[in-house]
């Protein structure tokens, strides 16, 4: 049977003759590192010789040299297929480095400038009675405001977003689900200032409430909701259908199946998504300016009176333009970054703790 099949097939001569030996010349394992060092050195050297002022030009030169040298060396020592492979790998590395450099530079600038005035006093005091040009004062009122506004916004947006995602994945069929998906997509694109203006017209102007942390939190929740819906939706879609069927086949009602099987399976991803959404809104300034108004005093009640928040504080301090206020702005920026980073670490911790376990 199989012989007959093989005989019918036309025998095609292979395009390239089979290699006589399976071994071939190869670059040593340290080659990529070595080439990287050499090309950085060459890039810097060329930059000095030709008097290029911008360090960016040095870097780009080094990156180009790295890719070019890798290709040439590999094409000479190895073969063309290997050379292409190495070029692809080196391009990935170059892109990675290009992406990381701004991040590291931002971290370095913020940390080096921010630590100057960052201490317990800075974290524990407000700007009450401190004029903008003086040294001293602190970020306590802004930190408190950010914490309360973000917590309120999460309390509003996370349940609504979660339930919307559950509806879309588990129940949504036909026109309504399509409409919801469409409007969530539209919401993703709402500029933060527009969300702020919306709350300003409805809550403050039409209903007559004054500025408060809660008004800001409502605007933030508008920004947060689509992000939560989108990420939760993706996570729920990742839950294997077999698990849903297994639960249903045990005679479990659908709502209970979602609550006890689908959501626990996806909880790690959902928590990460919510935390990323929190991180996104923690840095919003525009709606806070419009709705929370800003103050130099400590106001622990988010439902009444103006509050402050970290991004708003940074902007205020920057606007003053004195040496002392610049220092405060950088320190507040560092506090904000640390706040977001801690949230991210918490999310990762939850994800790891709750993730489906595979150990024996």
């Amino acid at each position, binding site marked *: 049977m199989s012989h007959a099949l093989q005989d019918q097939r036309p025998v095609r001569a292979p395009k390239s003759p089979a290699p006589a030996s399976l071994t071939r010349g190869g670059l040593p394992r340290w080659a990529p590192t070595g080439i990287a060092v050499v090309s950085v050195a060459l890039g810097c050297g060329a930059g000095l010789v030709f008097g290029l002022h911008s360090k960016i030009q040095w870097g780009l030169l080094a990156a180009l040299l790295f890719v070019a040298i890798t290709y040439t060396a590999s094409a000479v020592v190895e073969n063309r297929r290997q050379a292409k492979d190495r070029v692809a790998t080196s391009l990935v590395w170059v892109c990675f480095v290009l992406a990381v450099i701004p991040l590291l530079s931002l971290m370095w600038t913020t940390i080096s400038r921010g630590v100057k005035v960052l201490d317990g006093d800075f974290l524990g005091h407000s700007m009450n009675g401190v004029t903008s040009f003086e040294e001293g004062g602190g970020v306590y009122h802004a930190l408190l405001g950010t914490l309360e506004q973000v917590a309120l916004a999460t309390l509003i947006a996370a349940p609504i977003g979660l339930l919307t995602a559950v509806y879309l994945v588990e129940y949504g*069929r036909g026109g309504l689900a399509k409409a919801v998906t469409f409007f969530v997509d539209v919401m993703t694109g709402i500029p933060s200032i527009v969300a702020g203006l919306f709350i300003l017209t409805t809550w403050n102007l039409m209903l007559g409430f004054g500025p408060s942390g809660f008004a800001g939190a409502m605007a933030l929740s508008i920004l947060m909701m689509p992000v939560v819906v989108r990420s939760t939706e993706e996570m729920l879609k990742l839950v*294997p259908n*077999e*698990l*849903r*069927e*297994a*639960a*249903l*086949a*045990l*005679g*479990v*009602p659908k709502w*209970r*199946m979602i609550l*006890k*099987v689908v959501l*626990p*399976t996806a*909880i790690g991803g959902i928590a990460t998504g919510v935390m990323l959404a929190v991180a996104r809104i923690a840095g919003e300034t525009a709606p806070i300016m419009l709705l929370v108004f800003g103050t130099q005093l400590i106001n622990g009640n988010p439902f009444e009176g103006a509050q402050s928040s970290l991004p708003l504080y940074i902007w205020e301090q920057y606007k003053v333009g004195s040496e002392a206020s610049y220092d405060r702005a950088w320190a507040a920026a560092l506090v904000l970054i640390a706040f977001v980073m801690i949230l991210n670490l918490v999310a990762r911790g939850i994800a790891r703790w*709750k993730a*489906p*376990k*595979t*150990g*024996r």
Partner: protein
Amino acid sequence: MAKRIDVSGLSAFYGTHKAIDDISMTVEPRSVTAFIGPSGCGKSTFLRTLNRMHEVTPGGRVEGKVLLDDENLYGAGVDPVAVRRTVGMVFQRPNPFPTMSIFDNVAAGLRLNGSFKKAELADIVEKSLKGANLWNEVKDRLNKPGSGLSGGQQQRLCIARAIAVEPQVLLMDEPCSALDPISTLAIEDLIGELKERFTIVIVTHNMQQAARVSDRTAFFNLSAVGQPGKLIELDDTDRIFSNPSVQATEDYISGRFG
């Protein structure tokens, strides 16, 4: 305990596509009935209509009657959740809940359906795991995740989970197709024990398996791709494999196809 299944004039659809056409058969209580037939002939679809899992698939729709001891599963006012508690199911691929331990997996059906006392739950879990011949292998690590077991153990865990809720009927959709011969043997032995208590319906592609485990065998076929599947014949397993009354059945089981 075990119940008899009486199917009459049953057709199942996916949207507008008719997957199985006008099937009538009777499944006796405390027996093993095997479904054989080529892929796509609707065996699994038919199996899933027996505990109303077919309608979980988007667009899934059923016409006809399935009587479980004179009660129509598709009658007005019948709760599909109650049906699935009575008619349990084991799937092709082992699917233990990844977030739950071995104990919780077996207890899942009970816990999700209502609260049980802890001691009572432990009893049921032990009984079910023993019933699935898994107790000795896992009794020291009941709190470890169920997904850490081997494929065959996972499948027996799923069987334990299905029998823990004490169903009347157990449907098995190719339960051994992802398993090695030794695990398959373990499951087949288990089926032999379980039929003392349950009515068992098993879909299989392995004809030796059908011959080994079942009392009665049903052969399904479809006239062409895209056509709905039909029940060709249902008879005692001995007769199907020695002297079937329809030529198509003999062609299929002897490997002479079409």
